[in-house]
């Protein structure tokens, strides 16, 4: 419980970091007209989950306050914020870190991914390009960058980034998929077909690639082949729907606990690297405790697959 105790004392110093800046202006809730309002449901957090959220926040606060110099601390604090859905804070944490350490490739990488998540593709491409220059080995950096360029209507640049980066790894199918779309936009339909086919060769159940292949084949006037590709797309779609239905019964509470346990373990490693064995031990112990509860606790109700549902 060392983490919790420490965080209480340090809350004031980290509040500027952890208080999320609302992206939507506060006046959103204000309506000057007098209207009859029907009672709205409350937005209460069920008890079990509230504890997890608060604990994750406390951990983030403690990590940043106790080990501010370590990039790992920044990464962990930002990740915790992002997982809560608070990308604004996550981005703020990284921006502050990059002010001091602009050479941190992961910072630009994460900022880029947050921007991707928020649909700011032009900005995302800028950050990801910086990250790529610093560390081209970041996970699927070319794929992310190529996709952003494609979505920003920078089609030729997207193709230039993607084509030499296809590789043989698992992400190659995704890069080929985006390359296929770039080729479609360039009206290079034969090359688009080859890219989608390549994606399918690597990942035969890649639903979107089958759709792209069908589109390319139809553009080439190969109606029968296009229809066969569409049929496969339909079949895979129905399997996707079944998988989505299975996700509905996922145990969200247990997943969150396992995640939190992992973060405690990461925090423990940071503390150990900083030469604080007592903190490390406390963090690892708490992580083990949380992990145990993940596998044994009675889970809260199953959740929908997403925020909407």
């Amino acid at each position, binding site marked *: 419980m060392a983490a919790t105790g420490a965080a209480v004392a340090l809350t004031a110093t980290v509040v*500027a970091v952890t*208080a*999320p800046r*609302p992206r939507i202006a506060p006046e*959103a809730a204000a*309506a000057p007209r007098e*209207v009859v309002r*029907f009672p*709205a*449901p*409350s*937005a209460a*957090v069920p008890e*079990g989950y*509230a504890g997890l*959220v608060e604990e994750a926040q406390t951990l983030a606060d403690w990590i*940043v*306050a106790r080990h*501010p110099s*370590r*990039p*790992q601390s920044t*990464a*962990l604090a930002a990740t915790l914020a992002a*997982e809560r*859905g608070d990308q*604004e804070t996550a981005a*703020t*944490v990284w*921006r*502050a870190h990059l*002010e001091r350490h*602009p050479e941190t490739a992961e910072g630009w990488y994460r900022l880029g991914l947050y921007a991707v*998540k*928020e*649909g*700011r593709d032009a*900005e995302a491409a800028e950050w990801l390009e910086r990250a790529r220059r610093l560390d081209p080995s970041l996970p699927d950096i070319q794929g992310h960058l190529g996709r952003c360029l494609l979505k*920003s*209507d920078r089609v030729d640049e997207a193709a230039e980034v993607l084509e030499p980066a296809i590789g043989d790894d698992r992400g190659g199918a995704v890069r080929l998929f985006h390359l296929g*779309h770039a080729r479609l936009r360039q009206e290079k339909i034969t090359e688009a077909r080859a890219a989608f086919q390549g994606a399918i060769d690597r990942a035969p159940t890649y639903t979107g690639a*089958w*759709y*792209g292949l069908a*589109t390319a084949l*139809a553009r080439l006037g190969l109606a029968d082949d296009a*229809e066969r590709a*569409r049929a496969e797309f339909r079949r895979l779609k129905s399997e996707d729907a079944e998988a989505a*239905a299975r996700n*509905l019964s996922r145990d*969200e509470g247990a997943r969150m606990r396992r*995640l939190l346990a992992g973060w405690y373990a990461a925090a423990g*490693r940071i503390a150990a690297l900083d030469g604080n064995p007592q903190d490390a031990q406390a963090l690892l112990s708490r992580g083990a405790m949380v992990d145990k509860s993940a596998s044994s606790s009675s889970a809260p*109700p199953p959740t*929908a*697959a*997403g*925020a*909407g*549902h």
Partner: protein
Amino acid sequence: MVPSSPLCLALCPMTLVLVLGCGQPRPPAAPPPTPPSADRASSPPAIVPVASDPPPPSAAAPIRFVDATEASRIGFVHTDGSSGRRYLVEPLSAGVATFDYDGDGRIDLYFPNGALLPGTEPGDSESPRRHALCRNLGAGVFGDVSLAAGIDCRDYGLGVVAGDVDEDGFADLFLTTFGAKRLFRNLGDGTFVDATESANVADGEKVGAGATFLDADGDGDLDLYAANYVRFTLDNHRPRSFKGFPVYAGPRDYPPWPDTFFRNSGDGRFVDASVDAGIAAVAGPGMGVVCLDHDDDGDTDIYVGNDALEGNFLFENDGRGNFRETALAAGVAVNRFGAEIGSMGTEAGDADGDGRIDLFVTDFQPDLPVLFRNLGRGQFEDATAATAAGSGAWQFVTWGTAMADFDNDGRRDLFLACGHLNDNVEAFDDTTAYRNHNLVLRNVGGRFVDVSAAAGLHDIPRHAARGVACDDLDDDGDLDLVILNSREAPTLLRNLDRERGGTNHWCQVRLRGRQGNRDGVGAKVVLHAGDETFVDEVHAGRGYQGHFGTRLHFGLGGHPAIDRIEIRWIGGGTETFTDVPIDRLAELTEGSGRAVAAPGSSPKP
């Protein structure tokens, strides 16, 4: 409503690898613990903001709206029941309709409303929980005439469409609800009568959605297509949560209903022809519906937005009212990545000015709405990225939509109604909010630019908007908007184009069918002015489960005259009108070959 998943990247094992392995270790005696400051981070020298995706608007605030709600005296307040149990139907709210119910030349309003649900606290007992028919009294004022007009509807309303089903010259009303569907027949004397039973359109107890009238078989009367959502009942309600927060269930939680197709028998009755016509061969969680002649073969096809599952449907008409679902082959089932769209509203119009009717579909946050460009020969492509048709929309759930020329420059702009379905979304997602401002995207040379702020939409109270209807409500030559807001009063936006001295010309046309259906529903109108051609079709039912725009509006830009208008009537031939005036409403009657300027409006008593 495609689910907004949690930040998946944070869940990847890769994340922890990065956390522990990527950074360069630094000595413990690091600089003093100066926590990063939000203020400092707001303008770091190392991070220079890059240009946002869309270019800035080329002209200063060419589109401008003002909130005219209060002056309109509209007293309607929507309720979704707010049961506290989060029944699936609550966030669906409803569409809205604009149509001239009494034939006086002014566009009136119809607002469906929700109803009490188990768990609803009564709240203000004086509040009407019924639908509202609001008569346009002129001068921007509307009066609730529901009871006087014989519409005391307290069903849980979801969708609305207007159409003259009995060809008597007055628009009837069809409503979809959480329950039985309803048809109110317009008697022509300012009153309606409930003709649900005699017309045979109740269609059991379903969660209804968008609906559209069309003359599917070209026999001169209006048939009816009604989308249905999912097989939800109060008894099979499923509480759902996300990240520990209660949220509404969605389309994945229940199997979908097939949609319903009613063929008009011509004797006041409709026959459920869903199976015979090929509609019931597929089923999806339908929401918005719009008709168009997607392949330009002279008959009316049906486009249905399905909510996240099955892909959208395009029912291709064989000209005799038999349909085949062809969305996937046509390229309008899914977006360009092969992903289903959380479709809400659907709209049809010529977005790129190439003379073909394109399709636009609103979507669930964070996915963008989708513009499908019509390539001809019944083929479409997802042109969202190429046209920036999703500008500014990523953080919003988008619902109602209108593709309309708000500045009369001859190019169709986009309006999107925004609002989340979960009233607690801010608790688990800081990128969005329950109440949002709406979006207007100006069409600048074929690319869409988010001009919402300049258009005044950021100055207007935010709501959880749903249905949108777009018509010239004050008969001044520009298109206004009415928006149904979930749980609150609606918003009426008056377009200030004329008041601000807009000099672009315009033209409105009202069709009168003789051989074909009376309002010319489904007719294709091609307007030639100088070297430009403008195309539209008459729709009855569009957007998010609503109805608007039966009176066609064309912005003409600087063209001082109309050379001719060609009309291809459904079930009839093609006819040319050469004497159509600009800057006013003209009535074009089938077979007459000449336009008649519609009489000017005069204040109502």
